[in-house]
């Protein structure tokens, strides 16, 4: 697959996900809406990292570093929610 083709496809996928976000914001409410938009955002970010930010061309160490950063964001959200979700 040529580079232009790949990048265009990724772009189209991102636009598709954008539409999905838009649809979800009308169709869903409350926590479900939040969960859906976060999940879609994760998918978008993953596409961007993998293709636009060249992670797919990188070696193991750089990929590991990227995963590390993701894990680190999870730590922040997880432990912060341990506060917000459990407040009386």
């Amino acid at each position, binding site marked *: 697959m040529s580079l232009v083709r790949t990048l265009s496809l990724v772009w189209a996928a991102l636009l598709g996900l954008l539409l999905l976000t838009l649809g979800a914001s009308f169709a869903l409410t409350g926590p479900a809406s939040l969960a859906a938009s976060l999940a879609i955002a994760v998918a978008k970010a993953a596409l961007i990292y993998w293709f636009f930010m060249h992670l797919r061309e990188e070696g193991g*160490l750089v990929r590991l570093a990227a995963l590390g950063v993701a894990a680190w964001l999870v*730590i922040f959200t997880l*432990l*912060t929610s341990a506060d917000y*979700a459990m407040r009386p």
Partner: protein
Amino acid sequence: MTMDNALERRPNPDDLNDRGLSETQDERVSYLRAGHTLRSWLLTTDHKRIAILYLISVTLFFFIGGAAAALVRADLLTPQADLLTNEGYNRAFTLHGVIMVWFFLIPSIPNTFGNFLIPLMIGARDLAFPRLNLLSWYIYMLGGLFTVFVLIAGGVDTGWTFYTPLSSMFSNGHVVMVAVAVFVVGFSSILTGLNFIVTVHKLRAPGMSWGRLRLFVWAHYATSLILVLATPVLSVTLALVAAERLFGLGIFDPKLGGDPLLFQHLFWFYSHPAVYIMVLPALGVVSELVAASARKPVFGYRFIAGSSIAIAIIGFLVWGHHMFVAGQSMYASAVFSFLSLAVAVPSGIKVYNWTATLYKGHIELDPPFFFAASFIGLFVVGGLTGLVLAMLAVDVHLHDTYFVVAHFHYIMVGGTVSAYFGALHFWWPKMSGRIYPRIWGRLAAIFIFLGFNLTFFPQFILGYLGMPRRYHVYDPSFQVLHVLSSAGASILGVAYLMPFTYLFWSMRYGAPAGPNPWDVRGLEWTVPSPPPKHNFEEIPVVTGPPYDYPLEREGDQGEAGDAAEGNAAEGNAGSRA
């Protein structure tokens, strides 16, 4: 020791009255003499010169921050508000905190000694990105300039923690300006961290495997990970405070749908790891000083190296211990309390391994050893009181009292500042090429230790008795302890000034150091002092482990030759004092 060698290196070795006024051969080709113009310093990309630039500027900020502390301590001599107004007192402790944390403690050891030593220790000619390194110094100075501007313009009163809603809604000071200063200096931290990470990955000399890295380098690698990961969070947080202050965005203000506690989550998600940015490099320094004092292979090398990485990781899991009484959910508090106990384990591992390294070592009572020993003692007190504070129920009593103030000063001042001075005394001969009088180094270390304890130990008692932090009007029953503390602070202040006299003196009158004045192992001690511009004539090939001191068995201790030589060198330095 190599003192005799060093004397021979003088231009005229027979002239014993020549106390090194003239340049040695090594000095003529050293990095210090590679260009004499101001320009050659301000536009240098040599990691050693940048380290010197940082050494000067970081020390300058240490004294500005110290002046603010002196004001605070002077005001606290009496229970009334006589020296400073309420507003003035708030501004004094805020500037003290801001300057000490971001302009001294965080850059102190990494940007001076890390910069100078990491390439030398891994057998490289410079850092991976020399120009980025210089840029990081300029960014640091820009942030410093902003801070000095705020200082002149009247200051801020939020404390170094910028808690909302005070900082976002009520404070009248120059909050945004200080936020900009800290935001700017953050980029300097990030660039340094990035530079160190890439350098350690890419520029190690042939044979310098990860298992052969010095513990100082391991500690800086771990620190760099935190620098790169945590600092952007602080930048974002401060930007959000500024956005709320300037544009009324509802992020922390509940009336606009925000949450004030969110600020504390974000701030401490940065700042707890940041306290490890401040102390990990110091732990690395002490590992080196301990190994050098004992002149023995380090006990538990892998554990000390691994515990640095463990601290970097677990340090990210404990921030909630700053929010036990701030309205955080009880469940989260319990989790954070448990995790905070876990973070003490790697610190404990280090202390045990240092002790085991010193056991039966050939310890000479050199100044670096004094500083290392002070560090270990004070760090243990600071760490253990951290555990006390991490107990949920106890913290309700101790939160926001002087107990907390004493806790973190034991680690940040007793620990990191002692290590900074220890590093200065250990590597000074390498950086300057000259030896200073050891007796003065010992005296300075002893006075720092005594002054420190007199300043901060009474604060544990004050806090336990209920003296809140950040108050300058207090119950007269607390006065005795406050006076003790202020008296200690004046001893400490003088003791911190002492090294500057004899270190400056040594630059002109000290004996040439020779490559290895302490008779220790390590690549940086194989090159001349001061090192030549490009460090290594030839990139070294590493064939053995670090700290490859001769192993001894029970019974064959105390080689007479070693000790006698050491004493001779000592007498030499002593007579000069």
